């Protein structure tokens, strides 16, 4: 049975190898850190990361589970995941409702899956399998998608909700993805929130996007827009989450820029009375 973590909400960042030393120096401003699950599959000792993890809690975020593939989960990936989860201290772990490979063909990015009953059942069976690897919560994240897969029979919000309910798992709500999808596909993000099981949301992602090819694009390479901060403000009001991660993967010159965004998130949470102190 899915159980929500009891932690007070905190704000953290995703791990940046290039800024590992800076992260350690600014550790008192960061409540927890998110590291790509697959980074730990390479058994390399990263001394600075180890020091960071001595100071703040860790959450794991996977990219390559590919839970939306038509076939079963890859055994090698599951083996790696199982041994990682058994050997590391972490709060929760997550991946995306998407696929990165199909029938052994690697797509190279998070591709949307068809919103259908058939996929709800396939994905939730796999999510249960993954969740059973540990007693810590497993979360699934909403992705950005620019086109629907033909033959869809469900709306995005009911697709996501059905998966979360039937897999009995937690959610990672990416506020930037929600904002981008709402703009690109023309829906109201607040209505979307009212239709998903917000009690299951454990973690929030906040990131920057940009306008390219005539649409909003999830880049993880820009600062967070005012619109996304506004939506986050609404989320603070409506969603009982446990942690926020400011996501940035590239185009970052100074860690301070990310720390500034951590502090903006904390301020918005304080204004909403939900930021206590360190988690």
């Amino acid at each position, binding site marked *: 049975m899915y159980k929500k973590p009891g932690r007070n909400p905190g704000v953290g960042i995703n791990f940046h190898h290039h800024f590992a030393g800076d992260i350690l120096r600014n550790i008192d401003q960061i409540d927890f850190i998110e590291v790509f699950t697959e980074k730990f*599959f*390479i*058994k*390399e*000792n*990263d001394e600075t990361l180890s020091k960071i993890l001595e100071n703040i809690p860790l959450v794991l975020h996977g990219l390559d589970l590919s839970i939306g593939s*038509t076939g079963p989960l890859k055994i090698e990936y599951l083996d*790696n995941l199982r041994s990682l989860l058994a050997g590391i201290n972490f709060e929760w772990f997550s991946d995306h409702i998407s*696929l990165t*490979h*199909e*029938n*052994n*063909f*690697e*797509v*190279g*990015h998070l*591709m949307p*899956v*068809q919103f259908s009953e058939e996929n709800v059942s396939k994905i939730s069976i796999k999510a249960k399998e993954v969740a059973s690897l540990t007693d810590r919560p497993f979360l699934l994240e909403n992705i950005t998608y*620019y*086109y*629907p*897969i*033909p*033959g869809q029979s469900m709306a995005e919000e009911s697709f996501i909700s059905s998966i979360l309910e039937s897999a009995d798992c937690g959610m990672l709500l990416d506020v930037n993805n929600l904002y981008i999808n709402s703009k*690109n596909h023309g829906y109201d993000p607040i209505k979307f929130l009212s239709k998903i099981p917000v009690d299951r949301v454990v973690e929030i992602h906040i990131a920057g996007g940009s306008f*390219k*090819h*005539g*649409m909003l*694009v999830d880049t993880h390479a820009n600062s967070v827009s005012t619109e996304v901060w506004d939506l986050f403000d609404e989320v603070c009001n409506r969603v009982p989450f446990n942690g926020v991660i400011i996501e940035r993967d590239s185009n970052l010159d100074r860690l301070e820029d990310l720390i500034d965004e951590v502090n903006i998130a904390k301020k918005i949470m304080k204004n909403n009375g939900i930021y206590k102190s360190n988690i």
Partner: protein
Amino acid sequence: MSNLSGGSHESTQLLLAKLVTNPRLVREAIDSTDGFLAGFSMEEKQKQELIEFFKNHGVRFLASSQLLMKKRLDDIVDAMQVGRKIFSYELLREYFENYLEKTGLDEYVSKNPVVESILFCKYIISRENVDEREKIILDYDLTRNSVLQELMNDGRSYHSVIRDAETVSCAPYQMKVVIHPSVKIKEFPAGTSLLIKAIRNNASDDGVIFSSGKEILIFHKNWKKGGVATLKISPDTEKFIKILAYADSLGHAYDLLNEETGTELDVLRSVVTRFVESGLCVFQSVGRSYV
């Protein structure tokens, strides 16, 4: 006519997954949908859905494909540590488009940037018009990245390794030398290491003169800092490293080396200490412990 596999039945999800990795074919699918789909055997319903899809969402599907291609290229360029400093991004983009053109959609290539950078470097060396200097650099990048790829695939843990050089002198027979099996030793034209150093430091490499001779480079897991390190070594050092990797223990390696080269133990110790300090090797205890 597309170079997608004709005749076989593919699910819409798989067809789009393949297609999105190649913007040129996406364009073809949008511009002449009927002709494009004629290459596949599919039920009428699936065909109609795809026709609708390309009509209504083709532009965004193409944009998605272009974004993916750019990200894929950016990650590959990022993995080409030296090559990215001598080729302009525009030129690499042109090469990448040619590379995609030659890579059929049914070739199940890895999209891991390190793995794909190796394929891409090999492609440029063999199919594009590059000079000797450029070939050396691409060869250097692909050799380095093939070591990195093996490191990434290495799921073993090395819990009990000893990284400290002090240990070298004590109990050599209870000490196994560990050089990571991904290590590669390769001959390059003499002058290569100077050329790479100059490019890495953003300095001019005009002064680097290539002679007809060779130099030996070793690419190895850096046990100290992580990642891959490169070192220029002499033929004697190459022999030394091979014996170290082969021997059952450090003491055994000393015996073999002393027998073969007559080198004194003190000299061997100082060389091994240097290897440990540079991150080429570590030690593991061997034999039984009675403590």
